[in-house]
């Protein structure tokens, strides 16, 4: 069966569509014709578009809040070869937004649950799982096998890694990201369009931008943003309509307002500019300062385990407990003591009694390590980090303290 490829609404990388259309050899089965009947009768999709979807290879990086609608909608749409990369296990706290998983999946690898769910949704596609954290060593090899990469990750190092790999390989990168009630989406590295480094050349310092676990996130928000990413991915495969290339779409879900900002390729961009200086993948943890922060937490900050703290308190020594979480977290659960959010430590540290022993805690022990590091630098001698935070306290000392 032969097809005419007619005008595209966006400027693709030369060869991008050829790769997909060259693979369009198979016809649809009778079952597939029924399954995709609403697409087949849809202008701009039709039989040609559905066969393109079937021939397409899409990699979703991250099976989280964004990955859930991405996986479900791309599988349902009939993307023939769907890759999912993740290395995590389903946690009960994921189910508030990660609708690809069910309660029965809690405690099991995300990829196992995702593969079962997506193959149940559409047995006519192939689901490929990559059980690994994407790194500079494996990224090019994994992404090279796909036509499009979709960024559903939750951290800066992997976002820069996906960006650089997609630019180096000439693959479009369908980007989405969320924060509390706000989300954004665009298409990077498509033809003459911009890349993520054109938007943010440098990452923020580690620990300054809260994750979803620290800052919270409205459950439906990644559902909306991930669905927008799925929509853009499908349009890229079809070669129809205008994509978000060159437009950063912003959503404020609390006030339900969409805005878009024009973004151009930066000629001075170190990877997609006119004279690129980055020609191969780098160490993204180092680039984002993540390794350094961990080293600080592991080496330089004195720690106390929950059991050590418990013994100390039972022996009659009552150190000052310093909670560096946000006030809304304090409402969920607490170990008591003074509350000073991490961001206010520099301005309020002088109120603390430097002669007294201080044990600093937060949810998981990361923010409190930063606070201990700061207080030690500021001259406080008797300050310890509660290792593992409230989560570890709940596991090792008092299970009635809620984990969140």
């Amino acid at each position, binding site marked *: 069966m032969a097809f005419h490829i007619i005008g595209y609404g966006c400027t693709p990388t030369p060869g991008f569509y050829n790769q997909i259309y060259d693979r369009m050899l198979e016809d649809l089965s009778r079952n597939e014709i029924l399954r995709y009947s609403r697409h087949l009768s849809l202008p701009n999709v039709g039989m040609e578009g559905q066969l393109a979807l079937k021939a397409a290879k899409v990699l979703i990086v991250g099976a989280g809040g964004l990955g859930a609608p991405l996986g479900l909608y791309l599988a349902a749409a009939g993307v023939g070869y769907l890759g999912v990369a993740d290395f995590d296990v389903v946690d009960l706290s994921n189910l508030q937004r990660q609708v690809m998983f069910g309660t029965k999946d809690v405690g099991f690898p995300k990829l196992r649950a995702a593969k079962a769910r997506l193959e149940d949704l559409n047995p006519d596609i192939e689901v490929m799982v990559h059980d690994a954290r994407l790194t500079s060593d494996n990224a090019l090899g994994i992404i090279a096998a796909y036509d499009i990469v979709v960024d559903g990750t*939750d951290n800066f190092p992997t976002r820069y890694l996906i960006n650089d790999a997609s630019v180096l390989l000439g693959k479009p990168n369908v980007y989405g990201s969320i924060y509390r009630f706000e989300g954004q989406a665009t298409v990077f590295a498509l033809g003459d369009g911009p890349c993520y480094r054109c938007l*943010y050349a440098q990452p923020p310092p580690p620990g300054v931008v809260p994750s979803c676990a620290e800052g919270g996130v409205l459950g439906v928000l990644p559902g909306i943003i991930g669905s927008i990413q799925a929509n853009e991915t499908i349009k890229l495969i079809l070669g129809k309509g205008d994509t978000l290339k060159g437009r950063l779409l912003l959503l404020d879900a609390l006030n339900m307002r969409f805005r878009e900002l024009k973004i151009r390729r930066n000629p001075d961009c170190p990877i997609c500019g006119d004279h690129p200086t980055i020609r191969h993948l780098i160490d993204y943890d180092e680039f984002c300062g993540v390794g350094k922060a961990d080293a600080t937490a592991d080496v330089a900050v004195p720690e106390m385990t929950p059991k050590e703290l418990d013994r100390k308190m039972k022996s009659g020594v009552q150190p000052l407990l310093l909670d560096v979480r946000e006030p809304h977290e304090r409402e969920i659960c607490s170990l008591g003591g003074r509350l000073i959010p991490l*961001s206010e430590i520099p301005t309020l540290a002088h109120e603390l009694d430097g002669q007294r022993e201080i044990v600093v805690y937060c949810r998981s022990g990361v923010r409190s390590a930063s606070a201990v590091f700061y207080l030690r630098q500021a001259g406080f001698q008797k300050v310890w980090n509660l290792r593992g935070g409230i989560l570890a306290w709940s596991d090792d000392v008092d299970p009635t303290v809620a984990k969140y």
Partner: protein
Amino acid sequence: MKIEVLLFAQLRESLGTSRTVLELEEGQTVRDVAHRLMAQAGKPDVGSLPLRFAVNEEFVEEDHRLIDGDRVAVLTPVSGG
């Protein structure tokens, strides 16, 4: 001149508003907007965030000169997923 400023994510939270109007001198740039916002924000964390500016819905560099009535959107990176 009057400049309308739109704030997002962490800046919106630390300044307690999604929109503000600044009175600037003629010829001032988006960098001056950043300085004014940082002074208002007061939180040391926010000062270390990379900022990007869009004037009238188009991203510009920090030395972009503003004119009366411009609308400046100020973005910081977010990474959730």
